[in-house]
């Protein structure tokens, strides 16, 4: 069994600003678990696509039961993530794909995000996310997938709020920075309302569904 999650996020900034801000999103108050970020590959193709690869280091805590089962003396509390991205300038589609490179023998968590201009309002950008968690260890697959998915659900909203925070800092510097609220359990409705009042922009996370198959 594999667990998958599909979600959407609306940024109240045009696509060009969102993709520019994407490269500058670390550090921000929401993603303290990201320790480092380095670009190790970058090229522009003949059809003007920018391809980039970054390696991110993050804290990587297993739950207690996981430490007991999987700790082999060499387990590190730092995990590495590879982020590959393609910026398609002509089509205005920016796609990112992130996957863990440690502990692949236990599980793989792969996230794909696609950023496009909102067709109804080009001053906004829609980000579609899809994540798939796949446990690899026989007998623990479902437990691992459930754990990975719970952690993802907790963190992915913070990642979006983090980018939103940076976009405000870069493109609305005349306004006070958005309040950093609820890092442990973010209340996006409150966050949105406060932002809307100040920036007169709409920030809204939209429908999220969990699928299991």
């Amino acid at each position, binding site marked *: 069994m594999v667990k998958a999650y599909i979600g959407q996020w609306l940024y109240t900034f045009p696509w060009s600003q969102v993709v520019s801000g994407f490269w500058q999103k670390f550090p921000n108050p929401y993603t303290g678990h990201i320790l*480092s970020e380095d670009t*190790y590959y970058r090229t*522009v193709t003949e059809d003007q696509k920018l391809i980039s690869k970054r390696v991110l280091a993050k804290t990587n805590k297993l739950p207690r039961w996981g430490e007991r089962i999987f700790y082999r003396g060499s387990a590190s509390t730092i995990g590495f993530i590879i982020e590959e991205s393609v910026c398609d300038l002509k089509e205005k589609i920016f796609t990112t794909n992130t996957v863990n490179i440690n502990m692949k023998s236990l599980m793989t968590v792969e996230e794909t995000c696609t950023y496009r201009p909102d067709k109804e309002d080009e001053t906004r950008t829609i980000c579609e996310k899809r994540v798939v968690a796949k446990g690899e260890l026989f007998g623990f697959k479902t437990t691992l997938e459930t754990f990975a998915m719970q952690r993802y659900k907790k963190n992915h909203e913070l990642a979006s709020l983090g980018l939103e925070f940076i976009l405000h800092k870069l493109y609305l510097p005349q306004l006070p920075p958005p309040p950093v609220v609820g890092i442990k359990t973010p209340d996006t409705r409150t966050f949105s309302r406060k932002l809307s009042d100040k920036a007169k922009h709409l920030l809204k996370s939209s429908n999220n569904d969990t699928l299991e198959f």
Partner: protein
Amino acid sequence: MSSISPSCQILKDEYDACFNSWFSEHYLKGDTKADMCTNLFKKYQACIKDAIKEHKITLWELENEPTTKRN
């Protein structure tokens, strides 16, 4: 943002500044020639490769061509 290795931090900061400027001022405006930051990137990339070896991470992608399909 921090680099994976403190020894690459200055190179990273210089390259990132160049890249961010190139991305918004040139690339997004259709001038997609990527040579503006190439020298800075080469130095930074060499430093990162060494740092990654020290961390004993297997990044086979480093040695290969991009896996992303080109249309």
